């Protein structure tokens, strides 16, 4: 069953601004990336899905409920993490999340337990009695995630959850979202303007641009794809590429890196030996699961086609 289904969804704001047009989507359980530049319509879509904004055209169903008529039912079962700051500084994390748990309909004691659970899951168990104002940006993002998670939602809508985080904080947040989507079994939709960032954790990607669907694709087939090895050398990249090609490997250049498909473990040795033989200064060797950037940089394709294998 789809957790989110939209049909010809459109939203025009008074004054003629069109935020969404003809958006037809079916989002399956798992982790879905909602990708688009700022102003592409991501936040409008989320507001419609929460039943806070009525679409001007089409329909949207979330967890089987119509967003126009059953907004309250949807909001009782959907956790939402806004993009911007939304935390008061002078209350403790526990009190804040408990209060919002009750606002979701949990009885008082259950709200307390669920708030403690949610804060534990996001890694703030020790700090839960501290005032939110004393938290770092990363910890605040975790509180925002915890308030969305409280009460075991059927779907999480996360709007730019890695905003303002440093690379380490980003990785931790993404790992956390991945864990929620896989271990906890909660469907997650992550909105982000950085494809490269969320592609790692998503099962499905939806790209929108200018309020239109650019592409929707499942990545499940890709996870079985051959992984990539990115090699970056200080100099002599061309020589290395030629050398590797002569060894029978397919090599593609991306910016300063060479991408080599890892068909088996021998590839690692081949690449290492090649670099050693040529005596090149090695900057970086990175293992990549898959690479879908080009999927979305191509011209718009019909919706809901399974992602093609990335061409080496």
């Amino acid at each position, binding site marked *: 069953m789809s957790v989110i289904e939209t049909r010809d969804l459109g939203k025009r704001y008074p004054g003629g601004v069109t935020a969404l047009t003809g958006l037809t989507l079916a989002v399956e359980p798992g982790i879905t990336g909602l990708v688009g530049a700022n102003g592409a319509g991501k936040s409008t879509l989320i507001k419609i899905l929460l039943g806070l904004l009525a679409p001007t055209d089409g329909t949207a169903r979330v967890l089987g409920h119509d967003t126009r008529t059953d907004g309250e039912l949807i909001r009782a079962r959907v956790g939402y993490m*806004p993009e911007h700051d939304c935390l008061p500084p002078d209350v403790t994390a526990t009190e804040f999340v408990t209060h919002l748990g009750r606002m979701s309909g949990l009885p008082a004691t259950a709200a307390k337990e669920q708030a403690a659970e949610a804060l534990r899951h996001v890694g703030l168990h020790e700090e839960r009695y501290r005032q939110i104002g004393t938290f770092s940006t990363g910890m605040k993002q975790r509180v925002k995630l915890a308030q969305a998670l409280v009460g075991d939602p059927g779907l999480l809508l996360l709007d730019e959850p890695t905003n303002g985080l440093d690379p380490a904080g980003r990785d931790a947040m993404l790992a956390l979202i991945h864990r929620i989507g*896989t*271990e906890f079994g909660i469907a997650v939709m992550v909105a982000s303007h950085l494809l490269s960032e969320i592609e790692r954790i998503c099962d499905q990607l939806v790209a929108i641009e200018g309020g239109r669907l650019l592409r929707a694709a499942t990545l499940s087939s890709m996870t079985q794809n051959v992984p990539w090895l990115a090699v970056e050398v200080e100099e002599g990249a061309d020589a290395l590429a030629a050398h590797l090609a002569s060894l029978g490997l397919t090599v593609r250049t991306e910016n300063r890196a060479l991408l080599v498909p890892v068909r088996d473990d021998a590839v690692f040795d081949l690449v290492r030996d090649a670099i050693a033989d040529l005596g090149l200064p090695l900057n970086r060797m990175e293992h990549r699961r898959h690479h879908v950037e080009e999927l979305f940089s191509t011209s718009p394709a019909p919706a809901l086609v399974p992602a093609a294998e990335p061409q080496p």
Partner: protein
Amino acid sequence: MTTPAMTTDSVIHDIGYKPYTGPRLGRGHILRSLYWFSLRAAFGFGRGARARIIPLGGFAAMLLPAAISIYKVASVGGDPVLTYSHYAYSMSLFLIVFVAVAAPELVSRDLRHHTLPLYFSRPLRRSDYPLAKLLALATAIFLFEALPLIIMYLGTVASSTSGTGVWDQTKALVPGLLVALAYGAAFAPLTLLIASSTGRRAIATGAIAILFLATTAISHVFESVGTHSDGPPPPPPSSAQSDQTGQLQQSDGPPFKETFTYDSVARYGGLVDPLRLVEGTRIWALHATDANMPDPKGAGPLYGAELLLLTGLTTGGLFLRYRKVGVA
């Protein structure tokens, strides 16, 4: 992909994710929770100790006349130092301070910290948010005004020896409670509407305090312009401007009666002041003779009508405000 992977062989500290299977309650529960949360917040509970200084300090000040009265009645006898129906008006400065802090506390904070999207992305209805805040502040004002009266009543009754004494006290208490109710009903929407227009708590507090203090000052100017003290003995109504005669009897004062005549400026002047609006309505509706202000006499119904109108308009304005508030 979506099946929860039960990792039994990995980390022993991680007891894993347990889906919530308990009840999910509806609108009534959510509204009650927000009401209770806001009522506590009005008195500064739920945050640091500093937040309680002004509300509880003000409440302590409100209790002072009650405590003195209980002591006086118990040791010397006689009546409380402040009557039940004068209590709120005489101590109105503390009420002003209390609402000027409490109303921004209830609504400006959520605007300031952008917490509203978290509320409205939950099953809470759009209009239930102002409703809960309104009921909470009205209750808080009522408690702020009525609890000192009830304490004074209980203390006075405890040292009362006769049944008629208890009955007299009870009869005197009821108007006081009605006044407390009127303050709650009228001032909660008025101050919340002002506070909900800004996320800056200091500005909201200042605006509310200025509103009350300025209107009080204006109505006092009207009163002194329109009051003609003729002094004892009571003279005939001689002032050409005067259309009616009001009497201010200082019952607790020395044994002489000073008579004032009020012209229409004094009688209608209270209409600009929310505090006098309540006091004037009390005098008119309860046929009270212990006025703390120029008796509105014929203007009485006007006071009542304006009080109702003000309450209705500010309540409507508050709900309208939250229908239009932006989320997310």
